[in-house]
């Protein structure tokens, strides 16, 4: 019987053609906005936080800035070896190490993946990076001095279904930017997207395979002396760097920040954007719901006579209620499905554009099954909820009065 009601409802929606579609627009826009935003936002968050997030509390990071986008994208004046030396002499700085992080191509078993390749420094400096990134060997060992053409990979890359068709193990031979490397270890899993997918090689190797000038650095990791004041050290470094790079205060082409501050800033920007779109989405969903309600009220009015007829041939109030309730639920669900499809496409499209523009392979749409089914179920609920009152109105009609209705 419920099946017949569905058939009946679908028939009615089809009969109303364009008007049914127009009713769905609000829901479609709202759900599309929510799905695409959550999808891309989640992906962005993972990408950004993994890129800046894991540096430890007694450390500062100096990055080139001025353009848009994460380091390594070539839109900024890079940091130099000279910068590293000058920072090392700043009061309160215990140690400063230049790092490189670039997107690169990892090939194994004829399958290619893109990820972040990061450099390891020589000697004493190695420890600073290991500490800053919390690096520990899960399998095999970490890089040591003299480990030329050897690499340590993030834990994800060593998984069975990492996408290479064949599991990479310690001792495997992989190609990084078409250059052969031996895998000597995997990192302990950290739950950070970047570290778990990272490709670690010696700094000289990275310069060679990616053609990076000897003088250039992406990030300078700074270890602050135990008793020094973070804030003061940060300001001192800024002063030195301004002089070094010849820029005025307020026009810096670099930033000195604690990792937490970077993350907080990124998160708050992302949050503001998300909040804005959520508000728009919420408004359009509510407007969509009211649209459904309005359509259903009109529908009840237009079909008053039909309701009378159905009651005269044995339809109970419950039957009439179900018919209209299912119909509004259907409008919601169909709108939700279309919205979700559009949302997924938009998220993937934006991620694609993001990858093209920023040249970073980290920006991925992250769309979960829950997000998709949740939003479709949500829009079904929305349609149903806004359809309740019109459906009750329909069911309560007096059969004789309804039959007397002219249309």
């Amino acid at each position, binding site marked *: 019987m419920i099946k*017949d009601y569905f058939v009946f409802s679908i028939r009615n929606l089809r009969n109303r053609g364009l008007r049914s579609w127009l009713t769905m627009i609000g829901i479609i826009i709202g759900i599309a906005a929510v799905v695409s935003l959550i999808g891309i936002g989640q992906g962005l968050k993972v990408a950004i936080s993994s890129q800046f997030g894991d540096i430890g509390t007694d450390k500062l990071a100096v990055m080139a800035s001025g353009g848009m986008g994460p380091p390594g994208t070539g839109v900024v004046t890079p940091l130099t070896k000279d910068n590293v030396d000058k920072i090392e002499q700043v009061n309160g700085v215990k140690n400063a190490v230049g790092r490189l992080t670039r997107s690169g191509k990892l090939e194994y078993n004829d399958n290619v993946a893109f990820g972040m390749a990061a450099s390891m420094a020589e000697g004493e400096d190695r420890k600073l990076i290991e500490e800053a990134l919390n690096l520990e060997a899960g399998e095999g060992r970490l890089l040591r001095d003299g480990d030329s053409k050897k690499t340590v990979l993030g834990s994800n890359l060593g998984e069975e279904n990492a996408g290479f068709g064949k599991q990479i193990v310690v001792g495997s031979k992989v190609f990084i930017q078409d250059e052969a490397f031996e895998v000597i270890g995997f990192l302990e899993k950290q739950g950070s997207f970047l570290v778990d997918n990272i490709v670690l090689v010696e700094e000289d190797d990275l310069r060679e395979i990616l053609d990076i000038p000897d003088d250039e650095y992406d990030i300078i990791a700074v270890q602050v002396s135990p008793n020094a004041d973070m804030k003061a050290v940060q300001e001192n470094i800024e002063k030195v760097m301004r002089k070094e790079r010849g820029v005025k205060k307020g026009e810096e082409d670099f930033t000195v920040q604690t990792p937490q501050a970077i993350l907080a800033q990124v998160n708050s920007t992302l949050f503001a954007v998300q909040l804005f779109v959520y508000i728009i989405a919420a408004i359009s969903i509510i407007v969509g719901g009211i649209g459904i309600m309005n359509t259903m009220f009109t529908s009840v009015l237009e079909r008053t*006579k039909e309701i009378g007829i159905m009651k005269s*041939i044995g339809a109970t109030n419950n039957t009439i209620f179900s018919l209209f309730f299912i119909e509004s639920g259907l409008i919601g669900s169909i709108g939700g499905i279309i919205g979700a499809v559009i949302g997924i496409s938009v998220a993937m499209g934006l991620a694609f554009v993001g990858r093209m523009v920023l040249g970073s392979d980290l920006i991925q749409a992250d769309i979960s099954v829950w997000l998709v089914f949740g939003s479709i179920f949500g829009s079904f609920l929305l349609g149903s909820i806004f359809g309740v009152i019109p459906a009750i109105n329909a069911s309560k009609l007096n059969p004789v009065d309804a039959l007397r209705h002219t249309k």
Partner: protein
Amino acid sequence: MTETIIKLEDVWKIYKMGEVEVPALRGLDLKIKRGEFVAVQGASGSGKSTALNAIGCLDVPTKGKVFLEGRDISKLPESELAQIRGKKIGFIFQQFNLINTLTALENVTLPMIFQNIPSEERMKKAKELLEMVELGDRMDHKPTELSGGQQQRVAIARSLSNVPEVILADEPTGNLDSKTGETVIKFLGRLHKEKKTTIIMVTHDAGLAHHAQRIEFLKDGAIIKSKKRK
């Protein structure tokens, strides 16, 4: 001898129009036996439709009792009235009252859907009924693609789908020309003869009323005269 299927006892229906009270039925008494074909005749506004609606459980009287197969239905809740309408009553209206978005076949199956009849069974039944009213070749037509007489025959088929105890026809030929009207009445007559269905037909046409076994004359909401045919 034969059992009384419908009995109206002092039935009143008073419509309230603001301050004014319009009595449509004023102490109507009526008895109908199982298998009878009764015509109700009367001027416009005499209360014919109101009486029929009370019998058909579409409306409840203001006062008085309506018995269907010995059970007082005048104070039942809407949910039970709907069940009775679906199972025991078959309505035929002046304006046909088919659902325009559904085909003839679907219109005939609809009452069976409301009674949870399985899909195969109701399709078979609906086809039989449409063939009976000689519309076997029009099953997939929408009401708007059918003539008035054809529409009313679909309505007759629909009214029979749940094998009702009583057929209530309110001016079934009112929207048809006299020739088409005759064929529609012919089907009702056949129904009465072959299936022994109880039929109550409202009409103001004396000529049509003579198809019935008995004619009840209604005036100002009460029976004023009763005439039996042999």
